[in-house]
């Protein structure tokens, strides 16, 4: 049976509060509790709570025939614990049905896969432990890296950690004539299966759903299953990957996005030969067609599907380099606050805010940034990082004094 694999990304960063030069060396709390809490609450009302309720109904209604998967970043889980225990509970209920799969990622939704294997392993382990603690001993089998960033090397690291599969973008420049609707293998370790996002059909839902200038507006379930049916018979898997905030936050409830999802399974069952599976089921069930070569990292961002949204300019590279220069020192320090800040400072969003790519017409990027300009984002981050470096230095000296 052919199958649809839904994966939703759930992530919110710990945003940094306005932090001035005068605060360096004095104020060691960087996080904007007020706005982090209010954003979590706002998204909870618009998306997490209503959509989780809908999915729970659907899963129960179809008795195991409808399935989805989530990746909930560790920093997001931390914020659910602090600000939205009701949301956390609703996710726990979903996972407890047995038809909702959780994926493993880096705890802080970080970019460490690009620079440090030890930090990457630590972050994956951190997230795995958090999931185990919060979801009744649950153990993920499939991995998804921050922003679907993937390369042959990253795949090999993931395989080494015992994962059976990984999710990434079906980037055109990687696939060429190949279709994303098959299961592939990592080119270094073929034991690791690769699921590729069908960005055409995924983005029809995630980005274009309410776009009135789109020639296919409005998107109905009938139209969507027609496109699904157009997929050649031998292609077995349709991977629909998107931000969970698509439902109710990026696409407001008024657009009809909830109803679309509500009626989609029925339309699929009635008009197509597709079913629904979780990533683990796909990885275990489908036969991989070939290896795929990805020497240079790809991601799911922007037209380029590369890393330039996070590491594309001098500001980002400077912040990134200076942060990871601290790794070895931080590892020696046994201090919960330093460790927490080290985690939270790695979240990819901080680097995304510094992106100047779309400075001129910055629609997508400015939607996701609370800074007026990328320069403001850089200054604020660097002030915080400077204070963090000072704290690490002081702790380092304390350690030396002990020895």
């Amino acid at each position, binding site marked *: 049976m052919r199958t649809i694999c839904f994966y939703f990304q759930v992530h919110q960063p710990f945003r940094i509060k306005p932090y001035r030069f005068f605060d360096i060396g004095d104020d060691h709390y960087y996080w904007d509790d007020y706005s982090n809490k209010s954003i979590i609450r706002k998204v909870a009302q618009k998306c997490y709570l209503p959509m989780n309720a809908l999915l729970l109904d659907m899963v129960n209604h179809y008795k195991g025939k409808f399935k989805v998967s989530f990746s909930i970043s560790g920093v997001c889980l931390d914020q659910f614990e602090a600000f939205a225990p009701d949301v956390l509970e609703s996710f726990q209920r979903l996972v407890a049905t047995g038809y909702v799969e959780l994926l493993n990622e880096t705890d802080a939704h970080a970019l460490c896969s690009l620079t440090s294997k030890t930090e990457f392993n630590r972050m994956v382990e951190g997230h795995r432990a958090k999931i185990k603690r919060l979801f009744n001993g649950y153990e993920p089998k499939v991995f998804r890296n921050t922003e679907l960033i993937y390369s042959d090397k990253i795949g090999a690291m993931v395989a080494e950690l015992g994962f059976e599969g990984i999710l990434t973008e079906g980037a055109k420049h990687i696939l060429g004539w190949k279709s994303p609707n098959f299961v592939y293998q990592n080119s270094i370790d073929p034991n690791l299966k690769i699921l590729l996002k069908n960005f055409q059909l995924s983005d029809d839902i995630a980005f274009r759903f309410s776009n009135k200038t789109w020639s296919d507006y409005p998107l109905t379930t009938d139209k969507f299953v027609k496109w699904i049916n157009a997929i050649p018979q031998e292609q077995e898997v349709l991977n629909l990957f998107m931000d969970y905030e698509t439902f109710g936050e990026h696409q407001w409830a008024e657009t009809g996005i909830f109803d679309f999802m509500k009626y989609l399974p029925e339309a699929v069952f009635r008009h197509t030969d597709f079913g629904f599976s979780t990533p683990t089921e796909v990885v275990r069930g489908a036969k991989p067609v070939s290896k795929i070569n990805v020497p240079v990292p790809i991601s799911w961002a922007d037209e380029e599907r590369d890393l330039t949204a996070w590491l594309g300019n001098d500001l980002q590279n400077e912040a990134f380099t200076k942060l990871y220069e601290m790794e070895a020192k931080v590892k020696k320090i046994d201090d919960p606050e330093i460790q927490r800040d080290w985690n939270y400072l790695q979240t990819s969003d901080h680097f995304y805010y510094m992106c100047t790519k779309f400075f001129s017409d910055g629609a997508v990027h400015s939607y996701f940034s609370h800074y007026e300009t990328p*320069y403001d984002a850089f200054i604020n981050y660097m002030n915080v990082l400077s204070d963090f470096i000072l704290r690490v230095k002081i702790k380092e000296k304390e350690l030396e004094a002990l020895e």
Partner: protein
Amino acid sequence: MKVLMFGWEFPPHISGGLGTACYGLVKGLVHHKQDIIFVVPKLWGDEEPLADFVNASDVVIDYRERKFKKIWKNLTYLEVSSFLVPYLGPDEFKKYTDYAIHDRTDVDESVFSNKFEFSGKYGKDLMKEVSRYALVAAQIAKSKEHDVIHAHDWLAYPAGIAAKEISGKPLVAHIHATEFDRSGETVNQPVYDIERAGMQAADHVVAVSHLTRKIVIEKYGVHPDKVSVLHNAVLDSSIIKSDVRKKVPEKIVTFLGRITFQKGPEYFVEAAKKVIDRDPNVRFVMAGSGDLLNKMIERVAELGMGTKFHFTGFLKGKDVDDMYAISDVYVMPSVSEPFGIAPLEAVRHNTPVIISKQSGVAEVLRNAIKVDFWDVDAMADAIFGLLHYDSISKMFRELGSEELKKLKWEHVAAKLVTVYDKLHKEQP
């Protein structure tokens, strides 16, 4: 002597150094028993009562006066180029225009009205205000008795010229900054034209430094005999004690000013890199905003010193004092600075200063290190030296504050009075 003085701003409502300088000068003149009629486009009512203040917005113009018609005719050309703003880069310009638009609700713009409500800002109707200001000046010159006319910077030159045309009294044009300082070689022609007309019409030109005097002579073709130098002074030379303590272990080197071409911020960034390469235990701070800010941020990132070089944005009030107080070295690398009062403020905070040779203040401050603005190696050396060799900074601290005590507005005013006397006597 009764002095009819035209300014553009007066404390506490100021946006730049011009208002502060006018305030100091008026105070000094009052000390020497001069009567001042001080005209500003807009009075706020909380100015210190040092002079007979005239609010240009309150002056009723008698349009039947034949002489006014002539002035008016000469002035209409100014209104054409209304989108000119001196002193401001594009960013600030936008802020000021927004501000000016929202701030000016009760403006009566009719050409035929006999009163004009000035904003007194550097807004988008600046040229219009400058020309109206001149018309008002003519009315004041007719109704207020005076012996000499004194106009501060180009905004007030048309006013000075108009007043002179009515009363025939000698005109002093005071140069606080020229268009060449503000814009480099790409000058705003209409602004230059007004400056030149003012200097040419003036019986005497006063420049705030020898540097500025040279520009006045070379670029505006004013006869050297007509130009004298009156350096600015400080209102208060006492040392400011601060209980602010810096919270970082490193030494702090500071740039504080508008981040624009004129102030030479890029040379500070390059010098910082050279210092950090030799001594990582230093932090650099660039305080202020301006059209080159983003370029500076990018350059700092490119040089990889983002955790050692900080930007504070625009500072005001106590933050400025705190910034001076926690600084170990203050640098003013201006490309062209007619005077530059900020280093003197730094001295008042006991902070050693490095100033560019291309600044007027370098002519009066001996206990400072002076470098060419473009010589980043020398600048880096000077920063390194002041940070590491305590004896120089100690000496600067002791002698600098002594020097400051000599820079009094009374002394400046005394010299100005001799200029007035001479002009008064030479009058036919």
